[in-house]
């Protein structure tokens, strides 16, 4: 039992951080009315980028905390830029958000494979060691506090600052907001930056902490798992921080159901089942507070001019 806890507590912390940050990032983007179908692709890409950056920086500087921290930072910046392109593109032109989202998903998968393999090549040439993140039992509590802090910060930005009001306003009724002289594309660009930073850190920590390495197909489907957390948390940061505990626990533990007799192939699939069930559950529950409702214009093509 003690051994199990020794393993579980830090593992759970790493999963919790990854899914919470990614889910909150996705929330920021979807609150601005942009359907985040790109999430799985860009999550894969950012987790591969983190690996490539980490290898490269470990060669350039030397393996250590600095190289890891820098690669985390660079991944966050790169993902933020990609997401801001994504959100702005979906707004400047009256495109189908679904099609553009799936495009970015595919490109993310493809480039993720390219980038990750580049990291591998560098590794095979230089045999450099990456300083992966790990936490001791004692610092786990600190990790959770940090996440609560992140959730509260994003909550404050979204609900107490003008920036957040703008993001939610363009998610509700972009045409109306554009008519009062607000540049909708710019607001969504900012939401892409903010959300992208969080998803980028999430993806990077998946490689640098949760897995501690990179292999083909790294991160695949974990973007969707985080997306499910964001929906199950009603796209509301404090709720996400809360429900993410249960999801992380499920995602970490369920694949080990094989030890109680479930076939391994089926236990691997259980997190997906949990995600689907959660999304269904959330959509049939009645939401009393307006803040918990889906953004009204989520996924809708934006075109400023419309015949009266």
């Amino acid at each position, binding site marked *: 039992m003690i051994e199990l806890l020794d393993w579980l507590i830090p593992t759970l912390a790493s999963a919790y951080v990854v899914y919470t940050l990614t889910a909150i990032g996705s929330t920021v983007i979807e609150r601005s009315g942009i359907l985040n179908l790109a999430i799985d692709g860009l999550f894969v890409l950012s987790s591969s980028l983190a690996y490539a950056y980490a290898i490269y920086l470990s060669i350039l500087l030397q393996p250590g905390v600095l190289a890891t921290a820098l690669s985390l930072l660079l991944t966050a910046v790169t993902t933020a830029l990609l997401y801001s392109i994504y959100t702005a593109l979906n707004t400047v032109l009256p495109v189908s958000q679904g099609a553009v989202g799936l495009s970015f998903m595919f490109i993310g998968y*493809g480039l993720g494979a390219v980038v990750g393999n580049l990291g591998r090549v560098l590794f095979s040439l230089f045999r450099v060691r990456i300083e992966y993140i790990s936490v001791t039992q004692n610092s786990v509590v600190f990790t959770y506090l940090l996440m609560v802090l992140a959730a509260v910060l994003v909550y404050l930005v979204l609900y107490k600052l003008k920036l957040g009001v703008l993001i939610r306003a363009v998610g509700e009724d972009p045409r109306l907001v554009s008519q009062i002289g607000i540049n909708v594309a710019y607001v969504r660009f900012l939401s892409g930056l903010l959300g992208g930073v969080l998803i980028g850190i999430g993806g990077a920590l998946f490689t640098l902490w949760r897995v501690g390495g990179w292999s083909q197909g790294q991160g695949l489907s974990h973007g969707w798992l985080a997306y499910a957390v964001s929906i199950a948390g009603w796209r509301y940061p404090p709720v996400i921080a809360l429900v993410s505990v249960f999801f992380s626990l499920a995602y970490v533990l369920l694949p080990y159901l094989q030890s109680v007799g479930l076939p391994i192939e089926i236990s691997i699939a259980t997190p997906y089942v949990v995600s689907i069930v959660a999304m269904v559950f959330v959509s049939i529950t009645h939401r009393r507070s307006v803040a918990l409702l889906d953004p009204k214009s989520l996924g809708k093509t934006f075109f400023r001019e419309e015949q009266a």
Partner: protein
Amino acid sequence: MVKVSIVVTKRSRKSIATSTPVILLLSLLLGLVASYTLIWTFSKLDPISFFSTFYQTLISYTGLLEPLLFLTILGTAISIAFYGSFWNVGAEGQYVFGMLGAIYLVMFSPVSEVFLNGDSAANGVAKLLAVISGGLLGLLWSLIPGALKAYTRVSEVPVMLLMNYIAYSISDYLTAGPWKGRYTYGYIRTDMIPESSRLTVISGLEVLRYEVVIATIAVFAIAYLLIEYTRLGLEIKVLGSNPVALKSSGRNEKKTIILVSAISGFIAGLAGALRLLGYDYRLLYNIGDGKTGFYGYTAILVAWLSFKDLRFVIPSAIIVSALSSFGYRMQMFLKELLPPGVSAFAFSQIFIGTTLVVYSLARITKEYSVKLVVRE
């Protein structure tokens, strides 16, 4: 200060420059250029090798025929769903379920007896049953997100993408468990299906099977009739363009969503069954590692390129077949110029993604005029 702004207005008349064929070709061309740029950033790939290899892919038409047929069937399946705004990104899972349905009927059901000692007529009927059983399993798998969308309004996109993984898992479970073969030289896979249950190779064009060609034509023709001439087709189109109008004219929106998901899933399942009976002959373990050829995903691009116009499914399928074969061909002939270790499908994904994004941008010119304006 110079400001560049993009001005979008509704277009009042049509022009040839924005007709579907032009947009398709433009998307292919610009998509390739964009893909090349992306890959070039990470490799030593020169444009001449890249584009000449693509040209080689195009003219090796026999290599394209096989993906073309499967992408036409799957593309039709997804297109029908798109008409009804049922974003079937789960064709990959339905395709796998189609394989399961077919192999079950051929090897593990009472019908399997027929293939061991039946006459050729009985074999033919049993084969047809196997294909239909694949279709039905595809239908079943697609009905889940369909019913969830209809009754709980859960978005089908994330649900289906997650369900694809579950489908892989179920297939792997069966392959490693109850359906595990005895004559597999230690590999985890099912046994081969009996010769008598396999589809008929066309002599002279060994990459083709008679039944697959016939099924492709039949599926496409029936789908076209359905969409253009029947009430159900009309209701699917209204569901996709304005569900409120569908409801207020007294039709059942939920029923239509479920029907469209069922039809789409059935056709995708057929494709899986045909694949198994005509080409694969068995299930392999870790089917999600590319053993499906990822046709179910690639076909999403076919459906987008022919968006709500079935006539363009085949031209789009040609383009997409070329793009997906291109990945494998590049891997084969340009290996030393490419970043090492990257799978052919990863390149295909880049082609699919860039072509789709270029296409989505180009397509808006059908309805809108976009101008770049420079001001001081």
